[in-house]
């Protein structure tokens, strides 16, 4: 029989399939230690998150509203009404556009900045301090700041753009349906990139120097060294960062809500802001819950596919 080292906390350290199967039949007592380790976090999350989730799920099938506190079951009416309305599809496309553009730009800019910060030695500390400013600024404050910067006459953006002649005339970025969401996207990129920058900076610094040296000796250019050596080494970090940024961006509410409240009209509404408007401005809890569930479902599908991919590559072992 193959020797199996067990630790007293249950489970085994070592791949012994046959004996593992037999252990399972001895009951879950073996794993109490492990469960105890994860229990506090799990219980906390259950109590604080699962209940609201289940409650929202239930409410989405009712006509609950603030002035109707005893809700009546209406089946899938909220979902049906949502899916047939133009507003829903506008919010949907905005959300997808918002998430994809922000995440991609944060990735590219974060990668570039991270690698950049690894190069220059002179003002590196100052730069790092500067770079985290957007990340640690409260979302609402950042939104107010950017709103002022986008003011057609009193704001910084137009002043700069007109000085370099990229724009002639005072453009009201946040007041035009075509430019409101793109303008907020720029603010979101500014706000969230620092997280990616720090992650990629560190990942780049952890690329084994000897690998890079070997490539250089073999005659690879800087660009080639990056693409074929550094980038693959950084891939695990990149994967986690993109997962987190996608989830955080999709649900990010502060910037859009404070800068335009989803306007003009519905031009800049995304799932979190529209759900919020339904729940608090109009106090229609049932409809809000339905939108919330749909948004969560979209993120759920994405996350599961994504994590399954990570699992396939052994990232969850």
């Amino acid at each position, binding site marked *: 029989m193959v020797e199996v080292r067990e630790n*007293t*906390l249950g*489970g085994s*350290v070592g791949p012994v399939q046959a004996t593992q199967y037999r252990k399972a039949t001895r009951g*879950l007592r073996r*794993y109490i230690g*492990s*469960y105890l*380790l*994860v229990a*506090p*976090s*799990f219980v*906390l*999350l259950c109590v*604080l*998150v*699962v*209940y*609201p989730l289940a*409650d929202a799920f239930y409410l989405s099938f009712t006509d609950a509203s603030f002035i109707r506190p005893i809700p009546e079951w209406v089946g899938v009416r909220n979902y049906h009404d949502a899916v047939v309305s133009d507003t829903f599809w506008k919010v949907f496309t905005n959300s997808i556009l918002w998430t994809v553009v922000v995440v991609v730009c944060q990735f590219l800019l974060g990668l570039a900045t991270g690698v*950049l910060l690894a190069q220059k030695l002179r003002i590196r500390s100052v*730069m790092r301090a*500067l770079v985290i*400013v957007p990340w*640690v*600024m*409260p*979302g*609402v*404050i950042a939104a*107010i700041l950017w709103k002022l910067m986008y003011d057609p006459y*009193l704001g910084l953006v137009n*002043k700069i753009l007109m000085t370099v002649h990229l724009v002639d005339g005072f453009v009201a970025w946040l007041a035009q349906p075509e430019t409101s969401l793109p303008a907020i996207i720029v603010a979101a990129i*500014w706000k969230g990139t620092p997280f990616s920058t*720090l*992650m990629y*900076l*560190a990942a780049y*610094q*952890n690329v084994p120097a000897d690998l890079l040296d070997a490539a250089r000796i073999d005659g690879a250019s800087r660009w080639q060294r990056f693409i074929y050596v550094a980038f693959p080494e950084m891939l*695990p*970090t990149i*994967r*986690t960062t993109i*997962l*987190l940024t996608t*989830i955080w961006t999709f*649900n990010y*509410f502060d910037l859009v809500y404070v800068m335009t409240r989803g306007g003009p009209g519905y031009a800049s509404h995304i799932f979190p802001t529209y*759900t919020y408007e339904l*729940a608090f401005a109009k106090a229609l809890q049932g409809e809000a*819950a339905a939108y*919330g*569930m749909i948004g*969560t479902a979209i993120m759920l599908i994405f*996350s599961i596919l994504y*994590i399954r991919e*990570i699992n396939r590559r052994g990232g*969850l072992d």
Partner: protein
Amino acid sequence: MSTWYRRVQRAVPDAATLVVAGFFGLPLLWMLSTSVKTASEVFTAPPTILPKTITIVNYQGVLNRQFLLYLANSTIVSLGTSVICVGLSILAAYGFSRTRFPGRKVLLVAIMISQLLPLAVLLIGIYRVANALNLINTYAGLISAYLAFTLPPSIWLLRGFLTSVPVELEEAAMVDGASRLDAFLRISVPLAMPGIIATWAYALFITWQDFMFALVFMTSDERRTLPLGVLALIGEHTIDWGKLMASSVLLMVPIFVTFGFVQRYLIEGLTRGALKG
């Protein structure tokens, strides 16, 4: 010709750094400059980047007893959350990375999934739970709420980090007669310290700037946190821009100071934690 090309090549990082610094830093500069402007200069068109006259009247107006009260509350809540978060995450991450048990992967995924809920949907539900447990307007209540959204990323990050600390070192210590717990505490934890500090810093920064949960959970003035104090400067009909910017700057100062100290660990820790996807 090649020297010219090489000079350009060397200048690119400098120029790029300038552009990046400008992109990230200009709004901060704007904020700083507005905080020292006089009330009438804030409303000038065209706007001035550097103030014509500098006044500290905004800072004086903001630094009062209430501000210190809010600062204390923020410190208690953020420190409390980040420390507890790290403690619970270490336990959970240890369980996930060092042991095998049924449902391990499912649990891990489930923990990440709890991050997916939008705020509007979560808020009333969490409030009800906290109210039923009599936690409204208490530090414990707000800390619990913050734990709900800092635990999942923390567990994932720490788990990854512990996975890359070789388990052989612990096993060697056990062979020498140390208990499992001893081995873990004496060997793996110190090695994992950068990651632990990184997780702690992440939770600290995120909770320091939150305002939605604080707004709803802290119902009396004595318990308010800094972001609430800052946003109180936005009235129904007017905004005190100078004071608003001054208090925002002051809100960020403690974070910068902390970041200065943990910079090294934060960077190193964030990457190690992420390595194992």
